[in-house]
């Protein structure tokens, strides 16, 4: 059998074999859960009055960063037959954390705390941040924790991916879900003009035009260890700005760093702009009127006063 002929027969067979193989390698246990949960649609209400999304998109899950994990890696309380007896043994550290963050996670706080088993350093950073303290110390349910920024844990993609809610493309809207929400702004007394002022700034304009080095929120404010603007450790507190701005603007000095802030323009730029607008409208009105009546007189001259011109 010639080599070519061999491949003509074998290649389609190999191809078909690949099609039959389960795509991303789910572990056996995940495959068991997905058997139902990839087909189920809709939400159900739990005893604690929370809505649970039943559907897991198996393809999206398989392609996500967590696609190779088994369901019980995070949903630790669930044993092989989860619906009969939730209550497997959960490590003490995770269990303690899950109690602390339970206002955020009405459905499965253990799964919400389980992130710490792999992302220990990051999770601890978040718990010490202004976002984390709001949950574990103030026990608020509308504050931000992992999933509020990163989206569903089942479909987490790389930060470089355009679909990532914390990537360059969507980070501004993700932060804006809270920082542009008047109810949240009033409740937590947040700076109220951040979304608008960012959009109008050079940074925001360049970002929306596709500048590859334009900053997003986290570029200046940091992410997991985010702090209040009044916290001396915040990267945007006082002199820390020199370092933060200096990451992109080499040699940033104290006279340069006030160039960008989220504050509304002060009276001088505000009235300065009003003055410029009056000037612009004034000049515009003069030239438009001048041009229009000049054109009118040119036409008049061409039609009615031809003779006088020739004299």
């Amino acid at each position, binding site marked *: 059998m010639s080599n070519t002929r061999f491949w003509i027969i074998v290649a389609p067979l190999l191809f078909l074999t690949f099609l039959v193989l389960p795509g991303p390698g789910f572990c056996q246990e995940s495959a068991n859960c997905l058997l139902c949960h990839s087909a189920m649609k809709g939400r159900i209400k739990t005893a604690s009055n929370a809505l649970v999304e039943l559907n897991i998109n198996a393809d999206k899950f398989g392609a996500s960063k967590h696609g190779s994990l088994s369901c019980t890696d995070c949903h630790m309380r669930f044993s092989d037959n989860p619906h009969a007896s939730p209550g497997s043994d959960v490590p003490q550290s995770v269990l303690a954390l899950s109690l602390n963050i339970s206002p955020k996670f009405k459905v499965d706080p253990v799964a919400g705390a389980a992130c710490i088993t792999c992302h220990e350093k990051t999770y601890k950073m978040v718990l010490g941040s202004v976002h984390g303290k709001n949950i574990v110390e103030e026990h608020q349910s509308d504050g931000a924790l992992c999933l509020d920024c990163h989206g569903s844990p089942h479909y987490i993609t790389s930060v470089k991916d355009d679909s990532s809610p914390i990537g360059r493309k969507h980070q501004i809207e993700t932060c804006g879900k809270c920082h542009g929400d008047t109810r949240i702004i009033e409740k937590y007394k947040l700076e109220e003009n951040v979304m608008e002022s960012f959009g109008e700034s050079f940074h*925001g304009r*360049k970002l*929306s035009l596709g500048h590859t080095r334009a900053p997003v929120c986290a570029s200046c404010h940091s992410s997991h260890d985010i702090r209040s603007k009044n916290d001396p450790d915040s990267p945007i507190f006082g002199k820390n700005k020199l370092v933060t701005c200096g990451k992109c603007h080499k040699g940033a000095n104290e*006279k340069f760093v006030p160039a960008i802030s989220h504050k509304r323009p*002060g009276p001088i730029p505000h009235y300065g702009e009003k003055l410029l607008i009056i000037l612009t409208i004034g000049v515009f009105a003069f030239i438009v009127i*001048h041009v229009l009546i000049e054109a009118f*007189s040119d036409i008049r001259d061409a039609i009615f006063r031809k003779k006088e011109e020739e004299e």
Partner: protein
Amino acid sequence: MSETTTVTQEVPEEIERFNIIFRIQHVLMFTTFLLLSFTGWGLKFAHEPHGISSIWIRIWGGAETAGLIHRIAGVGMLLDFIWHVLYLGYLFATKQMTINTKTTVIPLPKDVVDVVKNFMYFLGLSREKPRFARFSYAHKFDYWAVFWGMFIIGFSGYALAFPMQVSYIIPQFATGWIWELLWLMHSDEALLAIVFIIFWHFYNEHLKPEVFPMSWIWITGKISTKQLKHHHPMEYEHLFPDAAKKNRKH
């Protein structure tokens, strides 16, 4: 004696209105102006209409390249302006240019009178057109608008393009608001400049029936004496007093 004066007073077919250096300065001015307008527009209206501006900026090579074009063109325009001012200084120093009410571009009280007279003529209230010197009020407006733009847009643009260098000369009390003001000045006055060019300069030098599709002076630098007499009677009389007198007699 009288014979020789008539020989020197012979009126040529055309005269040079702008020498080659002024023409080059003008070409540099409008090429940099167009580049700055096209790239700057995309940044000023980055959000509206949504998505269009990013396509427009992509035509200019993306945000980084468009920014680079804008900076290079901006520096080029400022250098062109400085060249122009130095050249004027040189012309005055060597007495090639002197200040004369009939040839100067400096605004004079007569210009205000001319505006009123011209409006009266446009509206049919007067049959007499104002008699312009070398530069009419329209030309002077055009010329000084560039100076205004250079100081307001040029210097604010320089500060925005090289903020670190400029920050050292900014007084401490102004740091809180100066950047915002510079940006507003730059973008609002740039819009005024674009509107001004589209309506004023384009109408006067391109769309007006007598010059359409354009006045060729920017290339040739020359104006026919016939046109000179018609549009700039005071300059014509200043240049050719004898011919002008003769004309009046006839």
